[in-house]
Protein backbone atom coordinates (compact mmCIF):
# COMPACT_ATOMS: atom_id res chain seq x y z
CA UNK A 1 0.00 0.00 0.00
CA UNK A 2 1.20 3.54 -0.76
CA UNK A 3 1.99 5.89 2.12
CA UNK A 4 1.07 9.50 2.92
CA UNK A 5 4.65 10.43 2.04
CA UNK A 6 4.23 8.83 -1.41
CA UNK A 7 1.14 10.98 -1.96
CA UNK A 8 2.77 14.21 -0.80
CA UNK A 9 5.83 13.48 -2.93
CA UNK A 10 3.59 12.86 -5.98
CA UNK A 11 1.82 16.18 -5.39
CA UNK A 12 5.17 17.98 -5.18
CA UNK A 13 6.32 16.43 -8.45
CA UNK A 14 2.97 17.25 -10.14
CA UNK A 15 3.35 20.90 -9.13
CA UNK A 16 7.06 20.94 -10.03
CA UNK A 17 8.01 21.81 -6.46
CA UNK A 18 11.13 20.85 -4.57
CA UNK A 19 10.91 17.90 -2.19
CA UNK A 20 9.78 19.06 1.25
CA UNK A 21 7.88 22.10 -0.11
CA UNK A 22 4.47 20.82 1.00
CA UNK A 23 3.00 19.75 4.30
CA UNK A 24 -0.40 18.45 5.35
CA UNK A 25 -1.75 21.99 5.88
CA UNK A 26 -0.86 23.32 2.40
CA UNK A 27 -3.98 24.55 0.63
CA UNK A 28 -4.89 25.02 -3.02
CA UNK A 29 -4.17 28.63 -3.96
CA UNK A 30 -1.62 29.13 -1.18
CA UNK A 31 1.19 28.47 -3.63
CA UNK A 32 1.30 29.85 -7.18
CA UNK A 33 1.58 26.46 -8.89
CA UNK A 34 -1.55 25.04 -7.20
CA UNK A 35 -4.20 26.67 -9.41
CA UNK A 36 -6.92 24.80 -11.32
CA UNK A 37 -4.39 23.50 -13.86
CA UNK A 38 -2.09 22.42 -11.04
CA UNK A 39 -5.03 20.74 -9.31
CA UNK A 40 -5.79 18.69 -12.42
CA UNK A 41 -2.10 17.81 -12.71
CA UNK A 42 -2.18 16.53 -9.08
CA UNK A 43 -5.27 14.39 -9.70
CA UNK A 44 -3.86 12.95 -12.94
CA UNK A 45 -0.55 12.12 -11.23
CA UNK A 46 -2.32 10.46 -8.31
CA UNK A 47 -4.45 8.49 -10.79
CA UNK A 48 -1.21 7.10 -12.26
CA UNK A 49 0.22 6.40 -8.78
CA UNK A 50 -2.93 4.45 -7.83
CA UNK A 51 -3.31 2.64 -11.17
CA UNK A 52 -6.49 4.41 -12.31
CA UNK A 53 -8.36 4.21 -8.99
CA UNK A 54 -8.55 8.01 -8.51
CA UNK A 55 -10.59 8.85 -11.63
CA UNK A 56 -13.83 7.28 -10.34
CA UNK A 57 -13.68 9.03 -6.90
CA UNK A 58 -16.59 11.45 -7.07
CA UNK A 59 -15.47 14.05 -4.52
CA UNK A 60 -11.72 14.27 -5.10
CA UNK A 61 -11.93 17.30 -7.39
CA UNK A 62 -13.44 19.21 -4.45
CA UNK A 63 -10.37 18.64 -2.23
CA UNK A 64 -8.87 21.99 -1.25
CA UNK A 65 -5.75 20.94 0.65
CA UNK A 66 -3.18 18.17 1.07
CA UNK A 67 -5.12 17.08 4.16
CA UNK A 68 -8.38 16.87 2.17
CA UNK A 69 -6.68 14.70 -0.45
CA UNK A 70 -5.17 12.40 2.18
CA UNK A 71 -8.53 12.07 3.97
CA UNK A 72 -10.32 11.14 0.74
CA UNK A 73 -7.65 8.54 -0.04
CA UNK A 74 -8.04 7.11 3.49
CA UNK A 75 -11.86 6.99 3.09
CA UNK A 76 -11.38 5.08 -0.13
CA UNK A 77 -8.93 2.69 1.58
CA UNK A 78 -6.09 3.64 -0.77
CA UNK A 79 -3.73 4.64 2.05
CA UNK A 80 -3.61 3.89 5.78
CA UNK A 81 -4.78 6.50 8.29
Amino acid sequence: MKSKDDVISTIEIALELEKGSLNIDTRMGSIEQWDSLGHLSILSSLDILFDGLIGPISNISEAQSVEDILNILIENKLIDS
Partner: protein
Amino acid sequence: MKNMEKIKFNLTNTAIDLYLFDGIFKPTGTTKLLVDSVVTNCNGLVNKKILDLGSGSGVVAISLNKEGLGNNNFYASDLNDNTVECVLHNASRNNCKINVKKGSLFEPWYQEKFDLIIDDISGVSSEIAEISGWFDGVPCASGVGGDILTNNFLEDSVNYLNTGGIVFFPVISFSNIESILSTAKNNFDSVECVARSDFMLPESLKSHIDILEKLKEAGYITFENRFGTIIWYTEIYKAYNKT
Protein backbone atom coordinates in the same frame (compact mmCIF):
# COMPACT_ATOMS: atom_id res chain seq x y z
CA MET B 1 -10.53 57.82 -22.05
CA LYS B 2 -11.76 54.32 -22.99
CA ASN B 3 -12.92 51.86 -20.32
CA MET B 4 -10.16 49.30 -19.95
CA GLU B 5 -9.12 46.47 -17.67
CA LYS B 6 -5.44 45.78 -17.02
CA ILE B 7 -4.38 42.13 -16.93
CA LYS B 8 -1.11 40.23 -16.71
CA PHE B 9 -0.47 37.46 -19.24
CA ASN B 10 2.21 34.97 -18.17
CA LEU B 11 4.73 33.77 -20.74
CA THR B 12 7.36 31.08 -20.21
CA ASN B 13 10.06 33.41 -18.92
CA THR B 14 8.26 36.68 -18.30
CA ALA B 15 4.84 38.30 -18.20
CA ILE B 16 3.26 41.08 -20.24
CA ASP B 17 0.77 43.73 -19.19
CA LEU B 18 -2.26 44.04 -21.45
CA TYR B 19 -5.18 46.44 -21.45
CA LEU B 20 -8.59 45.09 -22.49
CA PHE B 21 -10.86 47.74 -24.00
CA ASP B 22 -14.66 47.29 -23.95
CA GLY B 23 -15.77 44.07 -25.66
CA ILE B 24 -12.24 42.75 -26.15
CA PHE B 25 -11.84 39.06 -25.36
CA LYS B 26 -9.81 38.11 -22.29
CA PRO B 27 -6.96 35.66 -23.09
CA THR B 28 -7.53 32.10 -21.85
CA GLY B 29 -5.59 28.90 -21.25
CA THR B 30 -6.15 28.13 -24.91
CA THR B 31 -4.40 31.39 -25.88
CA LYS B 32 -1.41 30.44 -23.70
CA LEU B 33 -1.23 26.95 -25.22
CA LEU B 34 -1.43 28.47 -28.70
CA VAL B 35 1.44 30.89 -28.01
CA ASP B 36 3.61 28.14 -26.48
CA SER B 37 2.95 25.85 -29.47
CA VAL B 38 3.93 28.48 -32.03
CA VAL B 39 7.08 29.37 -30.09
CA THR B 40 8.11 25.71 -29.82
CA ASN B 41 7.41 24.92 -33.48
CA CYS B 42 8.60 28.13 -35.15
CA ASN B 43 11.84 28.80 -33.33
CA GLY B 44 14.26 30.80 -35.51
CA LEU B 45 11.68 32.27 -37.89
CA VAL B 46 12.95 35.59 -39.31
CA ASN B 47 11.55 38.21 -41.72
CA LYS B 48 8.25 36.38 -42.18
CA LYS B 49 4.71 37.75 -42.24
CA ILE B 50 2.77 36.54 -39.19
CA LEU B 51 -0.99 37.09 -38.90
CA ASP B 52 -2.79 36.97 -35.53
CA LEU B 53 -6.40 36.36 -36.57
CA GLY B 54 -9.04 36.99 -33.92
CA SER B 55 -6.42 39.02 -32.15
CA GLY B 56 -8.50 40.49 -29.33
CA SER B 57 -6.00 42.57 -27.36
CA GLY B 58 -3.10 41.56 -29.63
CA VAL B 59 -1.95 39.06 -27.04
CA VAL B 60 -0.67 36.42 -29.49
CA ALA B 61 1.32 38.83 -31.67
CA ILE B 62 2.79 40.63 -28.66
CA SER B 63 3.65 37.37 -26.88
CA LEU B 64 5.41 35.99 -29.96
CA ASN B 65 7.35 39.24 -30.21
CA LYS B 66 8.54 38.74 -26.63
CA GLU B 67 9.21 35.01 -27.00
CA GLY B 68 11.91 35.16 -29.65
CA LEU B 69 9.99 35.86 -32.87
CA GLY B 70 10.45 39.62 -32.75
CA ASN B 71 12.41 39.72 -36.02
CA ASN B 72 9.27 39.13 -38.07
CA ASN B 73 6.47 41.35 -39.37
CA PHE B 74 3.24 41.15 -37.38
CA TYR B 75 -0.33 41.68 -38.55
CA ALA B 76 -3.53 41.39 -36.51
CA SER B 77 -7.28 41.68 -36.98
CA ASP B 78 -10.53 41.19 -35.14
CA LEU B 79 -14.09 42.33 -35.65
CA ASN B 80 -14.57 44.38 -32.47
CA ASP B 81 -14.92 48.15 -32.92
CA ASN B 82 -12.17 48.71 -30.33
CA THR B 83 -9.73 46.23 -31.90
CA VAL B 84 -7.45 48.67 -33.69
CA GLU B 85 -7.14 51.07 -30.78
CA CYS B 86 -6.68 48.27 -28.23
CA VAL B 87 -4.00 46.37 -30.18
CA LEU B 88 -2.08 49.56 -30.97
CA HIS B 89 -2.25 50.62 -27.30
CA ASN B 90 -0.90 47.25 -26.11
CA ALA B 91 1.70 47.01 -28.88
CA SER B 92 3.02 50.46 -28.03
CA ARG B 93 3.25 49.69 -24.31
CA ASN B 94 5.13 46.47 -25.07
CA ASN B 95 7.45 48.04 -27.67
CA CYS B 96 6.06 46.01 -30.58
CA LYS B 97 5.05 47.01 -34.09
CA ILE B 98 1.81 45.46 -35.37
CA ASN B 99 -0.18 46.29 -38.51
CA VAL B 100 -3.77 46.00 -37.25
CA LYS B 101 -7.11 46.12 -39.04
CA LYS B 102 -10.75 45.66 -38.08
CA GLY B 103 -12.84 43.00 -39.79
CA SER B 104 -14.17 39.46 -39.73
CA LEU B 105 -11.83 36.55 -40.54
CA PHE B 106 -9.82 37.36 -43.71
CA GLU B 107 -12.03 40.25 -44.85
CA PRO B 108 -9.38 42.92 -43.97
CA TRP B 109 -6.57 41.03 -45.77
CA TYR B 110 -7.79 40.91 -49.37
CA GLN B 111 -4.92 39.85 -51.68
CA GLU B 112 -2.43 39.62 -48.78
CA LYS B 113 -0.36 36.47 -48.18
CA PHE B 114 1.26 35.33 -44.94
CA ASP B 115 3.87 32.79 -43.87
CA LEU B 116 2.26 32.00 -40.56
CA ILE B 117 -1.40 32.43 -39.61
CA ILE B 118 -2.53 31.89 -36.04
CA ASP B 119 -6.23 31.42 -35.46
CA ASP B 120 -7.53 32.51 -32.05
CA ILE B 121 -11.16 33.07 -33.08
CA SER B 122 -14.17 31.76 -31.15
CA GLY B 123 -14.16 27.98 -31.25
CA VAL B 124 -16.66 26.73 -28.68
CA SER B 125 -20.32 25.85 -29.04
CA SER B 126 -22.35 29.07 -29.01
CA GLU B 127 -24.61 27.50 -26.36
CA ILE B 128 -21.60 27.10 -24.06
CA ALA B 129 -20.31 30.56 -24.95
CA GLU B 130 -23.64 31.96 -23.79
CA ILE B 131 -23.66 30.28 -20.36
CA SER B 132 -19.94 30.26 -19.57
CA GLY B 133 -19.34 33.98 -19.16
CA TRP B 134 -16.11 33.53 -21.15
CA PHE B 135 -17.31 35.82 -23.91
CA ASP B 136 -18.85 38.56 -21.74
CA GLY B 137 -20.33 40.69 -24.53
CA VAL B 138 -17.90 39.47 -27.20
CA PRO B 139 -19.75 38.04 -30.24
CA CYS B 140 -19.59 34.27 -30.72
CA ALA B 141 -21.12 33.23 -34.05
CA SER B 142 -19.57 29.78 -33.96
CA GLY B 143 -22.85 27.84 -34.07
CA VAL B 144 -24.11 25.12 -31.77
CA GLY B 145 -21.19 22.88 -32.82
CA GLY B 146 -18.66 25.68 -32.32
CA ASP B 147 -17.18 24.79 -35.70
CA ILE B 148 -18.56 27.40 -38.12
CA LEU B 149 -15.87 30.06 -37.73
CA THR B 150 -12.98 27.61 -37.48
CA ASN B 151 -14.16 25.74 -40.58
CA ASN B 152 -14.49 29.05 -42.45
CA PHE B 153 -11.00 29.95 -41.31
CA LEU B 154 -9.55 26.62 -42.50
CA GLU B 155 -11.26 26.82 -45.89
CA ASP B 156 -10.17 30.42 -46.51
CA SER B 157 -6.69 30.30 -44.99
CA VAL B 158 -5.17 28.33 -47.89
CA ASN B 159 -5.79 31.38 -50.11
CA TYR B 160 -3.88 33.65 -47.74
CA LEU B 161 -0.77 31.51 -47.22
CA ASN B 162 2.53 31.89 -49.03
CA THR B 163 4.06 28.68 -50.39
CA GLY B 164 5.33 26.72 -47.41
CA GLY B 165 3.08 28.71 -45.06
CA ILE B 166 1.72 27.23 -41.86
CA VAL B 167 -1.47 27.70 -39.85
CA PHE B 168 -1.94 27.02 -36.15
CA PHE B 169 -5.45 26.58 -34.78
CA PRO B 170 -6.97 25.38 -31.51
CA VAL B 171 -9.56 22.64 -31.33
CA ILE B 172 -11.57 22.75 -28.14
CA SER B 173 -13.50 19.68 -26.99
CA PHE B 174 -16.49 21.97 -26.34
CA SER B 175 -16.94 22.01 -30.13
CA ASN B 176 -17.52 19.53 -32.95
CA ILE B 177 -13.97 18.19 -33.24
CA GLU B 178 -14.81 15.75 -36.03
CA SER B 179 -16.19 18.50 -38.25
CA ILE B 180 -13.17 20.77 -37.69
CA LEU B 181 -10.53 18.09 -38.25
CA SER B 182 -12.35 16.85 -41.35
CA THR B 183 -12.30 20.38 -42.81
CA ALA B 184 -8.60 20.73 -41.91
CA LYS B 185 -7.71 17.44 -43.62
CA ASN B 186 -9.70 18.45 -46.72
CA ASN B 187 -7.70 21.66 -47.06
CA PHE B 188 -4.19 20.72 -45.89
CA ASP B 189 -1.77 17.88 -46.72
CA SER B 190 -0.49 17.77 -43.16
CA VAL B 191 -2.57 18.28 -40.00
CA GLU B 192 -0.68 17.54 -36.80
CA CYS B 193 -1.63 17.91 -33.13
CA VAL B 194 1.31 19.66 -31.45
CA ALA B 195 -0.02 20.31 -27.93
CA ARG B 196 -2.86 19.43 -25.60
CA SER B 197 -4.04 20.66 -22.24
CA ASP B 198 -6.85 19.26 -20.10
CA PHE B 199 -9.04 21.54 -17.99
CA MET B 200 -11.49 21.04 -15.15
CA LEU B 201 -14.99 22.41 -15.53
CA PRO B 202 -15.00 26.06 -14.39
CA GLU B 203 -17.38 27.24 -11.66
CA SER B 204 -19.46 29.18 -14.18
CA LEU B 205 -20.48 25.95 -15.93
CA LYS B 206 -21.08 23.72 -12.90
CA SER B 207 -24.77 24.62 -12.76
CA HIS B 208 -25.21 23.86 -16.48
CA ILE B 209 -24.10 20.23 -16.62
CA ASP B 210 -27.50 19.25 -18.08
CA ILE B 211 -26.82 21.46 -21.11
CA LEU B 212 -23.32 20.00 -21.53
CA GLU B 213 -24.70 16.45 -21.34
CA LYS B 214 -27.36 17.33 -23.95
CA LEU B 215 -24.74 18.78 -26.33
CA LYS B 216 -22.50 15.74 -25.83
CA GLU B 217 -25.42 13.39 -26.47
CA ALA B 218 -26.17 15.25 -29.72
CA GLY B 219 -22.53 14.86 -30.82
CA TYR B 220 -21.68 18.56 -30.70
CA ILE B 221 -19.07 18.41 -27.92
CA THR B 222 -16.81 15.93 -26.13
CA PHE B 223 -15.71 15.58 -22.52
CA GLU B 224 -14.84 12.98 -19.91
CA ASN B 225 -16.27 12.45 -16.44
CA ARG B 226 -13.33 11.98 -14.07
CA PHE B 227 -12.45 12.91 -10.48
CA GLY B 228 -16.13 13.78 -9.89
CA THR B 229 -16.09 16.57 -12.44
CA ILE B 230 -16.05 17.18 -16.17
CA ILE B 231 -12.65 17.21 -17.89
CA TRP B 232 -12.47 18.99 -21.26
CA TYR B 233 -9.47 19.82 -23.39
CA THR B 234 -7.86 22.05 -25.97
CA GLU B 235 -5.57 20.69 -28.66
CA ILE B 236 -3.38 22.88 -30.87
CA TYR B 237 -2.97 21.81 -34.48
CA LYS B 238 -0.35 22.77 -37.04
CA ALA B 239 -1.37 22.46 -40.70
CA TYR B 240 0.39 23.11 -44.00
CA ASN B 241 0.47 22.09 -47.63
CA LYS B 242 3.56 20.40 -49.04
CA THR B 243 3.51 22.34 -52.32
